[in-house]
């Protein structure tokens, strides 16, 4: 898929995210909109997955550790054909296969349950270590948030990933700089996050988190004997002007007027 088509797809995925949240009147728009291109780089450019065989043993594993951003993941999985797009509009409703946070038992294509912050990246480290144990060649990617990076468990997992030389393991930070109570720097500064991961033994890259080609290139950079860290510079609420860089949109559904205005900005017909 060329870049132009991917840009077009990104707009439609964002529209799907907003329609999901508008329909159930709950969920997390800011962090979902910020990680769209990260997930696109993984699912359209780099990772080996098979929508017809979601449990394919040799697939690459993708763990959305910042599980609250699952509307973005669901939109991508539906677009890839893991399940029908109509299912998206059942998000967070009773008996839906699309839970408020990712559930591997209910949603085809979801590799790991996440949502309790820090646990996804730690499980992903376990998946990568288990792959080494089995001498399997698949890779494991964990997408974390910057608020999540305040969890000690992230650093326990990072220490183990370096100790066990997991060069099949990549941690991708959706670095939008905001969290529920405000900016990271106000709430609990991450400091020099690149330096921290480097000190923990990761090969580190910094990329524009909305540039799919740049993310894909960094994901393909070979590393040996150590895990990889990608700091993706992103904009929370990306694509909708009034949601961008506004932490108030971390966990709030749009009203009717806001939904219509957002869809207009994205250039996608309401319920399109």
């Amino acid at each position, binding site marked *: 898929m060329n870049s132009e088509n991917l840009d077009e797809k990104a707009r439609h995925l964002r529209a799907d995210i907003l329609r999901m949240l508008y329909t159930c009147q709950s969920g997390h728009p800011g962090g979902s909109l910020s990680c769209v291109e990260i997930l696109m780089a993984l699912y359209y450019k780099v990772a080996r997955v098979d929508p017809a065989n979601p449990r394919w043993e040799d697939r690459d594993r993708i763990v959305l550790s910042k599980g609250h951003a699952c509307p973005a993941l669901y939109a991508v999985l539906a677009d890839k054909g893991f399940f029908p797009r109509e299912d998206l509009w059942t998000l967070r409703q009773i008996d839906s296969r699309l839970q408020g946070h990712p*559930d*591997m*038992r209910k949603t085809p294509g979801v*590799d*790991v*349950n996440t*949502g*309790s912050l*820090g*646990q996804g990246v*730690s*499980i*992903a*480290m*376990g*998946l*990568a*270590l*288990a*792959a080494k*144990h*089995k001498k399997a060649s698949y890779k494991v990617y964990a997408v974390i948030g910057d608020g999540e990076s305040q969890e*000690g*468990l992230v650093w*326990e*997992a990072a*220490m*183990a990933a370096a*100790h*066990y030389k997991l060069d099949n393991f990549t941690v991708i930070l959706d670095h939008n700089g905001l969290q529920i109570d405000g900016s990271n720097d106000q709430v609990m500064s991450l400091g020099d996050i690149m330096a921290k991961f480097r000190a923990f033994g990761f090969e580190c890259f910094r990329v524009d988190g909305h540039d799919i080609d740049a993310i894909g290139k960094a994901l393909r950079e070979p590393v040996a004997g150590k895990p990889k860290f990608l700091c993706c510079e992103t904009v929370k609420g990306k694509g909708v002007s009034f949601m961008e860089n506004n932490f108030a949109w971390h966990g709030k559904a749009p009203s009717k007027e806001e939904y219509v205005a957002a869809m207009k900005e994205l250039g996608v017909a309401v319920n399109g």
Partner: protein
Amino acid sequence: MGKSLRVAYGEALVELGAKNKDVVVMDADLSHATMTHAFAEKYPDRFYNFGIAEANMMCAAAGFAHSGLMPFVSTFALFGAGRAYEEIRNSVSYVNANVKFGFSHSGLSVGEDGGSHQSIEDISLMRCLPGMTIFVPCDPIETRKAVFAAAKIDGPVYIRVARPPVEDITDAKTPFVPGKANVLRDGSDVCILAAGLMIPYALRAAEYLEEDGIHAAVVNVHTIKPIDRDCILAMADKCGAVVTAEEHSIIGGLGSAVAEVLAGNSSAKFARVGIQDKFGRSGRPADLFAAYGLTAENIAAQCRKLKK
């Protein structure tokens, strides 16, 4: 003295590992205390040390289980069930991941290390997790059976492994069926339901009671979850009085599990011997058991009270 349950646990892992190549063992820098080092020495490529980072070990175990392997995870009961509770809850139990927990150094029998290390709430924490199986073996032979039974269950299992050496009470032929309590001694006046290290005290209490003409039954409730409702209700019906005995807080453990079965279903009189909503403290295990009422004399006294 017999061997300790933790030694039996380590030996059982080695034996199981020889038969099942999917078994991997994980520890958090306590392999010489939990006795998983026996497995580590025999199968170094199937042993993973995560350092003193219990939460990460639980999630890593989930990752291994999701990859088709069967991790047995060990640390002290307090740092497994307690510190890493939420990782066990969300990463393992919530998805019914096939992870086995063998947590040692449970209860007051940890002794001198004191209250900070004496887990009095691990059963309570694990019991409220849907789908969790809980074994509390009473001797080395039963510990081995618990390990092999756990391997046959598809889903999380918690095996509570005590630290001190104990004599074997059961033998190789004693059945160990998950969820089926074993009647060790039949009786008609009072039923003592006990688990783990309290079993010998319960048996001795029954002897004391016999001297008073009270015929006490003793039941080994080696599986706390799923609890054997049928056995408990039948014994309560037969004896009219039930006393539980556990090396754990009376809140959330065996006593609570039995109370939940009896409530609304039985008119039997009921009392609980266990740690009475208090923390532990340093001391020799025997002194601590005496100080906290975990004795044959106290079990017998509680039984007599119910029969008055």
